[in-house]
């Protein structure tokens, strides 16, 4: 299997030995390179996801979806981006100016920080903390600050209601999302993402962990999508009630940030689910079938990772385009009366099972 370490160490070598730069400059250039690469990937993934969602949603609805801008509508999203980038940004008269303009950046930074810590393929991992899971949980919930600020600073009643909903929703669902991930941490015995992936080499947790892992997986998907405010949990936005919820007053690129962040958050949730439950970039190995395992090894690790992500994303889209939106009390009931008790029992059961 191709290891991306080869590429990264070649660049490192190039800078240090061939160009003879000192440690500081090498690191600086490497940081910039990594940053640029991540930004590009971030934007690219958002573009691909927007197209995918439009197409898949159309197919669910017996429609065709974009098909006139470029072949099969492939460059549709680029046109959208050009438009959003050049649209006027309207400053709202009686808004809290500084916070109003700051809010979208919180959202985008929150999701970008999480994005940077994901292991995309073998050796393609920007930062590998030893508390990776904790870090991801912490920074991925930064986004809600942006949403609450947006709602509060816009001086719009719809926005405020949307923001309050977002706050309640995030605080609730963070619990079961965290507990579901902790279940896997118990199984892996580590919080480091690379270790978690490595420990799934002989079988993904979803298979190894049996029913516990399956329950945790489903709970994580539900809670994760609730955290990212996507349907059927799109209460903060709830188009039919609050027109556009917390981002009602945003236009142009400011709105574009929310729009892009929504899709990358979808990807991030799927990527975390992939890493924690579906073995990350690990190929599918079935113990005993060596020939099969070897064939699987030939498929690049990045393909495995993105393939699994695509599967999770498809699940999310399938659910989103099938179900109606929950009401706020239903949403909280689902978390506090169903998901949280189950995940608590689940983690306790796993802990017992592991110690035995």
């Amino acid at each position, binding site marked *: 299997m191709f290891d991306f370490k080869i590429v990264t160490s070649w660049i490192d070598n190039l800078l240090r030995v061939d160009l003879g730069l000192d440690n500081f400059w090498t690191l600086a250039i490497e940081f910039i390179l990594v940053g640029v690469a991540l930004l590009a990937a971030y934007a690219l993934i958002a573009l691909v996801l927007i197209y995918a969602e*439009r197409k898949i949603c*159309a197919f669910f*609805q*017996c*429609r*065709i*979806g*974009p*098909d*006139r*801008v470029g072949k099969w*509508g492939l460059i*549709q999203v*680029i*046109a*959208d*981006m*050009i*438009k*959003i980038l*050049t*649209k*006027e*940004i*309207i400053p709202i008269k009686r808004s809290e100016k500084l916070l109003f303009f700051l809010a979208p950046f919180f959202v985008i930074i929150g999701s970008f920080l999480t994005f940077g810590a994901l292991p995309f393929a073998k050796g393609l991992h920007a930062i590998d903390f030893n508390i990776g899971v904790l870090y991801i949980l912490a920074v991925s919930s930064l986004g809600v600050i942006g949403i609450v600020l947006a709602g509060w600073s816009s001086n719009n009643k719809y926005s405020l209601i949307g923001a309050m909903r977002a706050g309640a929703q995030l605080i609730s669902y963070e619990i079961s999302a965290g507990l579901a991930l902790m279940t896997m941490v118990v199984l892996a015995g580590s919080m480091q993402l690379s270790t978690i992936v490595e420990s799934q080499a002989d079988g993904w947790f979803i298979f190894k962990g049996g029913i516990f892992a399956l329950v945790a997986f489903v709970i994580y998907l539900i809670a994760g999508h609730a955290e990212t405010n996507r349907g059927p949990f799109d209460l903060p936005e709830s*188009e039919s009630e609050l*027109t*556009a919820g917390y*981002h*009602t*007053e*945003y*236009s*142009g690129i400011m*709105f574009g940030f929310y729009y892009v962040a929504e899709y990358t958050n979808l990807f991030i949730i799927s990527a975390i689910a992939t890493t924690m439950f579906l073995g990350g970039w690990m190929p599918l190995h079935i113990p005993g079938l060596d020939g099969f395992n070897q064939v699987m090894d030939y498929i690049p690790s990045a393909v495995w990772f993105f393939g699994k992500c695509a599967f999770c994303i498809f699940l999310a889209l399938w659910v989103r385009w099938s179900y109606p939106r929950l009401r706020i009390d239903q949403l909280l009931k689902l978390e506090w009366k169903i998901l949280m008790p189950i995940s608590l029992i689940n983690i306790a059961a796993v802990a017992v099972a592991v110690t035995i």
Partner: protein
Amino acid sequence: MKIKSIHIKNIPNEEFKDNEYLEQYVEELKKNGTSVAVTKLSDLLNWGHSNSVWPLTFGTSCCAIEFMCVAAARNDFARFGWEVTRNSPRQADVIFVSGTIVKKMAPVLKRLYDQMAEPKYVIAMGGCASTGGPFQSSYSVVKGVDQIIPVDVYIPGCPPRPEAVLYGMMQLARKIKLENYFAKERLEIKENVPLAEIAKENKAAKQEKAAAAK
């Protein structure tokens, strides 16, 4: 950009209606004169704008139902990339005035239009929005939304069938493709249509006659 170079898939330029207006439009643009580099950039932006016109969900009456039909499966306007209907005027690019606008609604429509971010477009869908349609003799109907906000495309019909709406949107795309994005002011062209003059004079004469008869 010239009209000839506009390309809309599957409909040749000469089969579109009202090319005269666009020619006049281009003439006016040329008078102002812009550099080639700016024009090229403007073309790229126009391409983006014309293929990503997000409508505001705004409907007052009957035409709104036909507008929903355009959004639904049979005449899917997502194919053109216009499916992201925004409920907030700040994020919308085009307002479909689908339905009658009455005098109580007029200030609201004006405010909605003002709330939209530039560049913004208006399509008058159906008879009521274009001219007052079936309610021309009413005391409370605004006879054509162009009295309130500038209109880019008129789609006649009562209500227009979904394909006619798609055609109207393609007309709008053609107009957007000709625009100069960097121009500060909106270009208003008033066409000289002799037939309309005759019709209006005749109508006024008849109304005077009727009033005199009373």
